[in-house]
């Protein structure tokens, strides 16, 4: 963020990606990376935030060996982007707007390993650009949290600002949990921060556990306090890490070594114009242009690569008059590996699979009559009102023709014949 060390630290030999700036050697001065600032603005814009016209870095002072300076360069009173929102889906299937307080720029910290009574430090990660996104306390169930995290990850990947791989620590979640009696509208006077949980699944398990733990504690009449807790996967429970220092104990003050940032309207518009089509916009367009169902759209837009693959296949399919819906179904049902398949191959496969299929009404009527006469009992069941019997007849017909017959036409022909009888 503030030096020229490579940020590609993952899996590298410890302390091989550091310099006087990230090690806080005397006299070293920070120097802002422009691309990191632009990426932070992109993230803010994608989350409907306003870009501040004036932004400052500040020192967040604390003593912990993960940062050699004794403070982290972060943002506090003048974050780069503020006041955004994102829509998530909750347990009840309803959409809820989650307010984003800010998306600000800071530097990552070193990695600590605890061994016996010592702590080992690898500073490769310290000084790597890190964007912190803070929401308002708007989540009311874990489904919303899962959806939020997945949507953020998707946005980061669409923006190409991060791989957002949780297992590698590219993206980390810190959940603040508190509970209140039903009917209370004010926020509880404490919150428990769940931290250093490096997997999505574990974070959700920790949140579920924590909600239950807090309800049980409050019902027993215990008082809950502001604290940080971690997750013990073996015991499947959260544990106390430290009692949280109040925010003003960080003694934030403007970083005197870094001049302020002034982001011009021009620059914001420039970045806006370079933003790719984001998942939400793509979803609306796919519905309008191709008439797809939401569940199909969600699969296709999961990654920008897959959605682009689909659109290329639709393009190729157009000259063969193939319905975009058929292409969507084909890609989704066959779980097409887009790394090993070309969009043109998909169209060839669809054309091929359609090739041997009998659609001639005369032929199909003959087949339907055969099936009915060979399965009198099932036909009788259908006439008595057993709807599922029709499926059995269709199945029998498909079997006779080894699947090379149009299901839709066979179905309607069978229905017609049975109703006539």
């Amino acid at each position, binding site marked *: 963020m503030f030096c*020229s*060390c*490579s940020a590609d630290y993952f899996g590298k*030999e*410890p*302390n*091989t*990606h*550091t*310099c*006087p700036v990230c*090690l806080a050697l005397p006299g070293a001065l920070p*120097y*802002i*990376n*422009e*691309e*990191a*600032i632009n990426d932070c603005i992109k993230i803010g814009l994608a989350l409907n935030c306003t870009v501040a016209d004036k932004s*400052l870095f500040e020192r967040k*002072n*604390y*003593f*912990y*060996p993960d940062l050699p300076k004794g403070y982290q360069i972060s943002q506090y009173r003048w974050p780069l982007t503020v006041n955004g929102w994102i829509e998530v889906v909750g347990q009840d299937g309803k959409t809820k707007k989650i307010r984003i307080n800010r998306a600000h720029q800071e530097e990552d910290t070193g990695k*600590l*390993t*605890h*061994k*016996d*009574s*010592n*702590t*080992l*430090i*690898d*500073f490769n990660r310290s000084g790597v650009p890190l964007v912190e996104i803070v929401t308002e306390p708007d989540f009311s169930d874990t489904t919303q949290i899962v959806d939020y995290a997945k949507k953020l990850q998707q946005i980061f990947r669409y923006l190409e600002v991060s791989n957002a791989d949780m297992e590698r620590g590219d993206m980390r979640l810190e959940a603040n949990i508190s509970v209140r009696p039903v009917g209370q509208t004010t926020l509880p006077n404490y919150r428990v921060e769940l931290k*250093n949980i490096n997997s999505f699944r574990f974070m959700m398990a920790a949140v579920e556990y924590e909600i239950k733990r807090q309800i049980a504690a409050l019902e027993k009449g215990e008082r809950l306090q502001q604290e940080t807790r*971690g997750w013990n996967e073996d015991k499947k429970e959260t544990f106390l*890490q*430290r009692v949280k*220092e109040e925010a003003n*104990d960080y*003694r934030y003050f*403007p970083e*005197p070594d*870094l*001049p*302020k*940032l*002034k982001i011009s309207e021009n620059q914001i518009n420039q970045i806006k114009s370079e933003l790719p089509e984001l998942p939400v916009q793509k979803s609306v367009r796919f519905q309008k242009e191709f008439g797809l169902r939401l569940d199909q759209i969600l699969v296709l837009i999961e990654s920008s690569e897959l959605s682009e693959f689909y659109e290329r296949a639709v393009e190729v399919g157009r000259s063969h008059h193939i319905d975009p819906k058929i292409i969507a179904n084909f890609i989704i049902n066959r779980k097409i590996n887009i790394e090993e398949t070309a969009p043109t191959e998909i169209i060839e496969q669809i054309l091929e699979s359609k090739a041997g299929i009998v659609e001639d009404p005369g032929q199909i009527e003959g087949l339907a009559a055969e099936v009915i006469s060979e399965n009198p009992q099932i036909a009788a069941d259908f006439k008595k009102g057993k709807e599922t019997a029709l499926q059995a007849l269709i199945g029998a017909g498909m079997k006779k023709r080894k699947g090379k017959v149009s299901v839709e036409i066979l179905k309607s022909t069978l229905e017609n014949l049975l109703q006539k009888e």
Partner: protein
Amino acid sequence: MSLTKDQVKHVAKLANLPLTSEEEEKYAEQLSKILEYVEQLNSVDTKDIEPTFNVSGQENVMRKDETEASLSQEEVLSNASKAENGMFVTKGVFEPE
């Protein structure tokens, strides 16, 4: 403005400084004097003056996203009082991962 002994203790804790009881007394007095001295600045009228956080007067000083060679692990650890497996060793801090 004068600092209480408790405030000194608190500040010392945040700064990770172990102080004896006598030192706490001593620093409470000294720090209070420093605060009083600095408080003289309050007599200046700053009503229409923007706070100054940086005296260079510059803005948007940024560098391109280009990497440069880092220090070698050997150089990095040459000042460490203790190292193990290429890492700095420090007194254990309680925060299991």
